[in-house]
């Protein structure tokens, strides 16, 4: 069958598999570093926005809006191709991680804000009345309750970050997609691309399923 030989060529697939798996490792590296950086950045932004003076609040608000508006591909290209003109030269890996983290932090900050706002005001008041500091109020009282609420949207955001790592291939990062296109060129056969697509799906399908389950669980459980 011609079609099978073209798109599902076992020999080409097996030859390109090591290369694809290396690509997967790079994809995971970019993804995980960006997710962690985005989580930390987002949490800091969300909490700072709660307790800062108005001026800082406005800055944080603007940051969040700007980085949720800019297309990731545009940001990545700006970071990689434009910043060198002002002397900031980031490696492809750092460029990808920077762009992904900046955007992910903006989304994560919004997710945490919504989670914190969903906690009844009485919890803040009871904490204040007991004399707990802002830090203890957050760490001991608010965040442990907010985490239940934010886990589904945070998981969703992780999925998006992992998907968006594919954009790193445009700054010559040897991620899964880049390896697949190179293998395809080498073998003159698109099977490696199909292989990459399947690997992306295998990686993300379980997370998508988990989000659905969590969302169902939480919407049934509370309120």
């Amino acid at each position, binding site marked *: 069958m011609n079609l099978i030989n073209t798109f599902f060529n076992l020999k080409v697939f097996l030859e390109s598999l090591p290369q694809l798996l290396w690509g997967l490792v790079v994809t995971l590296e970019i993804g995980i570093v960006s997710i962690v950086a985005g989580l930390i950045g987002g949490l800091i932004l969300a909490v700072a926005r709660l307790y800062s003076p108005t001026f800082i609040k406005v800055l944080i608000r603007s940051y969040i809006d700007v980085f949720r508006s800019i297309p990731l591909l545009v940001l990545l290209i700006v970071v990689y191709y434009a910043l060198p003109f002002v002397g900031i030269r980031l490696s492809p890996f750092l460029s990808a991680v920077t762009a992904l983290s900046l955007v992910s932090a903006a989304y994560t900050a919004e997710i945490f804000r919504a989670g914190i706002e969903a906690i*009844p005001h*009485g*919890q803040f*008041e*009871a904490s*204040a*009345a*007991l*004399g*707990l*500091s802002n830090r*203890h109020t957050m760490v*001991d*009282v608010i965040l*442990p*309750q907010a985490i239940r609420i934010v886990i589904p949207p945070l998981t969703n955001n992780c999925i998006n970050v992992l998907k968006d790592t594919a954009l790193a291939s445009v700054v010559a990062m040897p991620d899964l997609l880049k390896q697949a296109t190179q293998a395809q060129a080498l073998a003159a056969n698109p099977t490696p691309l199909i292989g990459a697509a399947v690997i992306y799906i295998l990686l993300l399908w379980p997370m998508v399923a988990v989000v659905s389950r969590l969302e169902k669980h939480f919407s049934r459980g509370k309120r």
Partner: protein
Amino acid sequence: MTAQTKNIISVRGLVKAYGTFTVLHGIDLDIAEGEVVCVIGPSGSGKSTLIRCINHLEAFSPESTITVDGIRVQQGAALAKVRAEVGMVFQSFNLFPHMTVLKNVMLAPMRVRQTPEADAARKARELLARVGISEQAEKYPGQLSGGQQQRVAIARALAMEPRVLLFDEPTSALDPEMVGEVLDVMRHLAGTGVTMVVVTHEMGFARQVADRVIFMDGGKLIEMGTPTEIFDNPREERTRSFLRAVLNH
């Protein structure tokens, strides 16, 4: 109250406004150490706002002054000291739902007073026994009845060994059959020397337990006196009509 008893709470010219809407119109009030004061008045008269200013849950006009045990109540480092001395019990309990009852009571002493965990736990169990819920220590608030939750909330406030306890309608959210158990705990507390300021609609409790009753209306302190003075012999017409309305229904 004898003359030499010192005032633990002192409120001077308390003005509180939400935007252009003034809720408290210059309240002056002194409360002596160990005194039990009940605050009564119609809905919206500013009772909650008044006691929430005492621990600065509500910010108030900077020209007003409130002092607790000589410390000025205002935003800043001293506020933590005030709040450590002033416990509060809310109408809606506001227990921490993700912690066991025991942990609810242990948290503030451990975090604010740096009490070692074992001591905090021992103290918490003592307090839970005092409010009659030792068997529930390992349960979560959601597993308790309203009356039990409110008693946990009282134990949680007591864990900080406060000199002052503020109650904002502590029995208003309870089913009628649970009101008594909470009032009993409060009645017992009143005998321990802690200063209590209680916003309440429980006139029987106020009459029986209060050293002094304050009647508020329209953001003003209309009348105050002993329970006998207020309930049997109110001077102000507004007090009389309020009491007529609540006692007759």
